[in-house]
Structure formats: structure tokens, C-alpha cells
């Protein structure tokens, strides 16, 4: 199954019955899949909106009514959706937003890149907010994390972003979906579904009184703190005796892992830390690693974004190197292993 199809199927199984999208490569297969799949299912609604802006506002509407809802796009389209994502955060509305990132800025190209790390992890739109950001690195994980994204979004009433790229979207790998019935959206006591027989509810993002807005901001900040404390996910590979840690996410982590497998066969003690949640970022794990490991190599398919989070986490406790290939360039594990090897020996670790 291709990655784009896997996300679509996982969303349906997670109880998503509303999908609003606008075509853009390299995620069109997902839109195509949802068009067919939601049509087969009772209550399924698929709309190809007139623009990205319309799509994200449709997401807001469905979410307000309590539905599990998803939209997907790629970098330039996600930029257009940022206003809506800010509104979702302000109004504490759950939604799943998939970004199959491409090379940027501007229209860029359609090749796999990780150029939207900042945009995804720093909020991206206006205002003081965060979104949960999940970074899968296999088709199975795309499926698993899509289902998880809906649960996290509902649990914290927060939009959750899945950050992939064209390689993950187009690649095919075997996928297993969990047995059992389709999930249903959990009961929610805040939705706007008509006030007959109950008091009215309000969901809004305009809070003119600064004192009220401040309290709302602190409420959101406390929520982000709870998420940061509880929801960090990462994969640790061969770190037990590592002298150097490669930090990579998504597609880059697959390539780095391939390189590390090669280098381990040659006796180099290298491991991989792969953040699965980009926000919240696995800071504490990195801090702990820095107690016994002095060298970190960050490899990203951009000109250096996550490396800033690694610096913030390590606070000068270890030496950090960066290897970046922006613009949609996908390197081979062999090239990556050369990068690691040269740093490894330069630093006298071998």
C-alpha cells in the first residue's frame, strides 16, 4: 500500500468521516483515495474545496460539530491553511492536518524535503500556539500515527500535524491495520450541534478583553505543557554503546539508519535517535544522552531546522554537527555513511 493511501485508510478506520482537500502533488493519491473511500461509507463526506483556505475552514466547521475531520496538502498549500490552523488552536478544535512536504520555499519542487520543520513545530500561523507534530518514517507508521493523531487531537482538543514527504507518500510497503471495528469519535461536551433543550455553547477566537485573552493564552500554554510532559515519542536505535548519535526524523532517519547498519558492521559505534514527535521534541532524552555521549550529528533534508532544537536541548553539553541536503535531494545510505565516518574519525572516536 502506498503511504498516501495508508493515511487515508487509517483515517477512515479512526472514524474520520469528513475530508476536505484541494489537489497538490505529492499527496494527490490521498485525496483520490478519500474521494472513493468516503463515498463507500455511510455518513462519509468528501469535498474537493475551491481552495486550501476553503478546505481548512470546512475542517473548522466539521470539528465544531464534533466530527473527526482531516485535510491534507503539501508545503505551499499548508502555508495557505495556516490562518485556519491558528483559528483551530485558538478555539481548541481537534483536527488532523497532513503535510506531504516538498522542496521549497515558494512553489519549490515536488521532491521529498523537510523544509517545513519550522513551520510545523513553531505553529506556522499567527498567535501564541503549538500543534502536535508527528513525523512517521514508514508506511506502517504513517497508518499507526494517523490513527494516533485523531486520538491525540481529541484528547487535547488540538490540531495534530502529520509531517511526511513525497517519498513516504509514494512509497509502498506492507501495512497491517489493527483488527476490530472502526473507531467512532468520542463523546464531546463542547460541540455546537444546536442548543435545543440545553444552554447555548460558544466557540470563538475573538476575545477583546486582554485579561480574558491572557487567561485563554495561559490555559493553552498549560495544555501545551501537559502535552510536552506526556506525549513525547521517539525511536532509539543502537544507542547502548554509541559514541556518536545521529539525530534525524522521517525519510532522513530511514537513510541514516541504513547508513548506521552499514557502519555497525564495520565496527563504528554509532546510534540513531529519531524523534517521532517533532513537537513536543524529545529534549530530555537528548539531555540524558549527552551525559555519556559527546558527539551528535544532525541530518535533515533542509538547510538546518531541527538542529536548532537539538542545540536548545543540549545547551552546549555536547558537540553538534549538521549535515543538510535541502531542495528535494535524497541521498543514499552510502553517502550518509561517508559523512558519519569522516566526523567519527575526525573526532578520534574510532
Amino acid at each position, binding site marked *: 500500500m502506498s503511504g498516501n493511501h495508508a493515511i487515508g485508510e487509517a483515517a477512515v478506520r479512526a472514524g474520520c468521516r469528513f475530508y476536505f482537500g484541494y489537489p497538490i502533488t505529492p499527496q494527490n493519491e490521498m485525496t483520490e483515495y478519500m474521494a472513493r473511500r468516503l463515498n463507500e461509507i455511510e455518513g462519509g463526506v468528501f469535498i474537493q474545496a475551491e481552495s486550501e483556505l476553503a478546505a481548512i475552514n470546512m475542517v473548522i466547521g466539521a470539528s465544531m460539530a464534533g466530527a473527526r475531520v482531516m485535510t491534507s496538502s503539501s508545503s505551499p498549500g499548508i502555508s495557505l491553511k495556516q490562518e485556519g490552523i491558528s483559528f483551530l488552536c485558538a478555539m481548541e478544535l481537534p483536527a488532523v492536518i497532513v503535510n506531504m512536504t516538498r522542496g521549497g520555499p515558494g512553489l519549490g519542487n515536488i521532491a521529498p524535503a523537510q523544509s517545513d520543520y519550522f513551520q510545523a513545530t513553531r505553529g506556522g500561523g499567527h498567535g501564541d500556539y503549538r500543534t502536535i507534530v508527528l513525523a512517521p518514517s514508514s508506511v506502517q507508521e504513517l497508518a499507526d500515527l494517523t490513527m494516533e493523531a485523531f486520538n491525540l487531537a481529541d484528547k487535547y482538543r488540538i490540531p495534530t500535524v502529520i509531517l511526511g514527504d513525497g517519498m513516504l507518500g509514494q512509497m*509502498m510497503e506492507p501495512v497491517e491495520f489493527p483488527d476490530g471495528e472502526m473507531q467512532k469519535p468520542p463523546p464531546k461536551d463542547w460541540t455546537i450541534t444546536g442548543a435545543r433543550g440545553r444552554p447555548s455553547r460558544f466557540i470563538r477566537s475573538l476575545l477583546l478583553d486582554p485579561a480574558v485573552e491572557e487567561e485563554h493564552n495561559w490555559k493553552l500554554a498549560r495544555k501545551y505543557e501537559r502535552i510536552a510532559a506526556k506525549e513525547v515519542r521517539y525511536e532509539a536505535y543502537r544507542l547502548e554503546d554509541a559514541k556518536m548519535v545521529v539525530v534525524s526524523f522521517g525519510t532522513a532517519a530511514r537513510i541514516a539508519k541504513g547508513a548506521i547498519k552499514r557502519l555497525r558492521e564495520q565496527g563504528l559505534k554509532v546510534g540513531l535517535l529519531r524523534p517521532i514527535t517533532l513537537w513536543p521534541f524529545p529534549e530530555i532524552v537528548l539531555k540524558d544522552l549527552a551525559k555519556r555521549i559527546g558527539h551528535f550529528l544532525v541530518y535533515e533534508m533542509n538547510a538546518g531546522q531541527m538542529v536548532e532544537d537539538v542545540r536548545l536541548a543540549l545547551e552546549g553539553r555536547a558537540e553538534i554537527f549538521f549535515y543538510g541536503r535541502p531542495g528535494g535531494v535524497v541521498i543514499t545510505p552510502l553517502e550518509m555513511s561517508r559523512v558519519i565516518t569522516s566526523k567519527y574519525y575526525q573526532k578520534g572516536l574510532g
Partner: protein
Amino acid sequence: MLIKTVFSGFGGQGVLMMGYLLAAAGMQEGKNVTYLPSYGAEVRGGTANCTVSISDDEIASPVASEPEYIVVMNKPSLIRFQNQVQSGGIIFLNANLVDMKPVRGDIEVCEVPANDLALKIGTDKAANMIMLGAFIKKTGLVSLETLKVVLKDVFTTKNPQLLELNEKALWEGFTYLEQGRQADASKADIS
């Protein structure tokens, strides 16, 4: 054991289909597989390629540094990929459309006149299946039986009339190498 194969050729030759069938057959046999198509603004007549990894263990990178096997359906693909195949690896050449030989001496070259063989059974559109049949005969990556099962799955939904032709083409390619005619053919077709 991790084996990576790159299939390459013109868009329209069914290069992605070859890779997809191999990956699906590998999955059917309980192995770990990844299928990575090249994509971009692809057009018919442009270049197409895909990378298939098959392994008993977890596959780290779906991107191949030095594939064990390369299947070359046209000349530009040979120029592009011949230096990537690992030492001791095999290049499968479509002898009808590639009129040059790999310059490397450290690899094995397996030539199959895929278009001629396909024409023999009716249409050279089936050249990809001829090549795939020969490929699995030579490499033993998956069994012919599994591949037939997968082929049936794919074509039953896609285009049932073409199933028989494709099965025939697979068999033709498979037995071509079996009969040990490869040496003669390469003499005849490659100057």
C-alpha cells in the same frame, strides 16, 4: 539478506509494474519489502525507475546505494545506472533496445531480447513481463508461482483480458534463461 533491485526504462514500458509485482510477490512470501517509485513530472517516453528492497529483516533505507541487481529496459537507463550496481551484481539488459554494453568488468550481464520475445507471443508491450520472468529465474528472489498469484490479483481488477498474455510472457522470459539460450542471443543481437 537484504537485496535491492532498480528497474529502469522509458515511461510506458511498464517499469513500475515490474517493480510493483516483485515487491508484492515478496510480501506474499512473508518478506519485508519496500517499493520506491521515482516520481516527478513524469511523461510517457521519459525515464522511469523504481527501487525494490526485499529482506528477511527490517529494511532501514528504501533508497539503494549500491543495488545488487539493475534491470535496464532502455539505453539511457544503462548510462545512468551502470555505475551504481555493486561489484559482483547483475545487470539485466533488454538486448533489443540497448545497443551498448556496460563498460564494467566486475559485474555480470544478463541479456534478454525482451521485445523480440514479447512480439513472438503477440505484442512487445509485454516486454516487461518477459524481463521479469527472466529476472526471477536468474535471481530466485521470489518464485514464479507467487508472481503468478500476484499477477492475477493485479490484473483481475485492472484488466482481466490481459492476464493470460502477461502470464504467458512471464513464462516465456522464465524459460528463455532456463533453456540456456542467453549466450547465443547476446552474440546474435549485440554487435
